[in-house]
């Protein structure tokens, strides 16, 4: 087959916005977490664990981690686009990343709501 360069997937802006929005969410959560920890000092394992039994802690944590996964997806996708040229291999790696990130999401739910 003749090598043909195709571009024009029309989702560039979405990825870019997702990356920036999730970055802000992660940053806000980090501040929130630091504030919570500061309020709970001195912190031992039990208090740490207890923190996550509250909905006001679980929901933001969950949202932040999902943001982190989405952020990771865009970043990983960019890296694969830059460095992995064969389409099949790239797609396979992308699927692996997606599966892993979905698995992490499920795992996050499991951890947070099993405490």
């Amino acid at each position, binding site marked *: 087959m003749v090598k043909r360069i195709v571009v024009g997937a*029309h989702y560039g802006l979405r990825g870019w916005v997702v990356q920036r929005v999730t970055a802000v969410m992660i940053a806000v959560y980090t501040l929130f977490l630091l504030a919570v920890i500061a309020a709970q000092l001195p912190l031992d394992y039990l208090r740490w664990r207890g923190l996550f039994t509250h909905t006001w802690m679980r929901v933001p944590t969950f949202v932040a981690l999902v943001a982190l996964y989405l952020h990771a997806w865009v970043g990983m996708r960019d890296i694969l686009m830059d460095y992995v040229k064969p389409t099949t291999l790239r797609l396979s790696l992308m699927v692996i990343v997606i599966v892993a990130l979905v698995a992490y999401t499920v795992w996050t739910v499991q951890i947070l709501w099993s405490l």
Partner: protein
Amino acid sequence: MRLSIYRYDPDKDAKPYMQDMEVALEPTDQMLLDALVRAKAVDDSIAFRRSCREGVCGSDAMNINGKNGLACITKIAELKEPVVLKPLPGLPVIRDLIVDMTQFFKQYHSIKPYLINDTPPPEGERVQSPEEREELNGLYECILCACCSTSCPSFWWNPDKFVGPAGLLQAYRFIADSRDQATNERLDDLNDPYRLFRCHSIMNCVDVCPKGLNPTRAIGKIKEIMLKRAV
């Protein structure tokens, strides 16, 4: 002055090598290009492009001591010797300091680098306020020397798909022009993970531009307009 020049002539060399040479300068020789012209008078096989010798035509872009720039406006006095001269990185070398710029111009052409306005032209000029004209400053001055695009890692990895800083600067030049009517089409074309969004704001382009232009800012402006359109 001492020069170390990248040499490769596919007609006779199996592979590239660096040639060290000592060039005798005249007191009037101020710029690196003057030294190169002297070197060529001694060894006529050294190949490089040059034309205006005042930094407006963009011919003599090369990698000078590791940084892209124009030989004609790089002062000899400010260079550390030996001056290592290599072709612009990331493009195929034709010979010595001459690179094949096809890919670079292909990307420039891909952004439709011309004013699109399908209304019938008036008898006189299309009116544009000084403020609207101001928008084009820092954009239209580009000389297409390729210093920026060939210093951009994103362009090195995807020269066939990423428009590169030079092309994107010109894309914004037309988006910013109050007389151009194709903003939507231009944005549609660029809304792509490769064409525009390979730019990760590394800012090498800003660092090397011999005309002091800022492609990263122009790229940011395109993204901003795109976002405005989407939300």
